[in-house]
């Protein structure tokens, strides 16, 4: 389990449940490394602001993370973390490697709507 303050997903079935029960979901799949930590920090900072989005992390090296690693949207990814955005159970956006707050909020706003 990753040592972040985010909700963790540890099983593929838990991810299935999360994206079926929530309209908007952001999952950051990575390690406790320098490219991943800033993205977790951004997500922790945005959790209160984006009440319409559920934020999760997932450890990249657990077997069930194949549900993220093997997504067609991540087939050309060569940098951690793999960050995936789901709307109504479908992948609407995926990014590879470190992202800054502006990049993350731009995606959240365009895919899930800007908070009031």
């Amino acid at each position: 389990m990753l040592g972040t303050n985010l909700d963790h997903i540890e099983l593929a079935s838990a991810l299935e449940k999360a994206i079926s029960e929530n309209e908007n979901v952001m999952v950051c799949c990575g390690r406790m490394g320098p490219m991943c930590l800033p993205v977790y920090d951004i997500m922790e900072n945005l959790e209160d602001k984006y009440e319409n989005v559920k934020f999760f992390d997932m450890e990249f090296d657990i077997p069930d993370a194949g549900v993220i690693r093997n997504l067609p949207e991540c087939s050309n990814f060569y940098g951690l973390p793999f960050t995936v955005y789901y709307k109504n159970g479908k992948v609407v956006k995926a990014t590879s490697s470190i992202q800054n707050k502006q990049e993350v909020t731009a995606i959240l706003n365009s895919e899930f709507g800007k908070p009031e």
Partner: protein
Amino acid sequence: MKKFDTIIIGAGPAGLTAGIYLARAKKSVLIVDQGAAGGQMVLTHKIANYPGVLEISGYELANNMKKQAKSFGCKIYSSSKITKMDILGKEKFIQIDGEDEFSADSVIIATGGEPRSLGLDSEKKFKGKGISYCATCDGDFFQDQDIIVVGGGNSALEEAVSLTKYAKSVTIVHQFDHFQGYEHAIREANDHPKINIILEHEVDEFLGDESLTSVRIRSNKNGSTQVLNATGAFIFIGYIPRTDHFKGILDINDRGEIIVDADLRINVIGVFAAGDVVTKKYRQVTTAVSDGTVAALSVMEYLNTK
């Protein structure tokens, strides 16, 4: 608008240390950082030369400092961009993320440094799709592949050697005719059978479609170009002080570092600077912590006498 005694810009070891000292002295402190708290310290896998701590990960040490600063009452805004700032007057002012506004009687600038990028459009295009800045994070994606490392300092040389665990070949591309790293690091890279070295060349463009497939490099001697097959490129070309916000406002030298006196005062009353952003020779976690202490004590003296 909420007012603090001190606003600290930067939450690396210098900024967090200054926050700990000031908050413990009952000063109200706001710490703002555009990235995660901890600064470049979180990029360090293991720290074994921090006195009193046998060995600790950079993330853990950063997290401890952050918790300590919060426990004394520091308010920390991480991943937050400063969108407006006026630190020249008696009352200092900042706006964060275009929304929250704060003022203070004093400011400590501890913005640290950031990895230097090549500045090519194609570098942005292939970030995470072949281009990486962290061998530990992404090395294992390049099992049995041909990759390049750009740079010629200790980081480039050491990471090139570490990448040989995964890659079929590692080509180091460096702009000068010699490396800047330590002798032992140069020797290890030179002697490694999987490492090729191309000196006096710079990256001209990263090439590929969905992901990186090759890199065009240009000779600094005669301008000729050649294309290297490479599905990965790791860039380690040093750090630059993060002083963009302060150019034209503060005294900054030609290396982009803020000029300070022995008490870390700068050319603006009530503003101090600490850590990797100031002009100095050695940059370590311990020197940043030292700077944070000095800056905090100088701020206390300033606040008590102003």
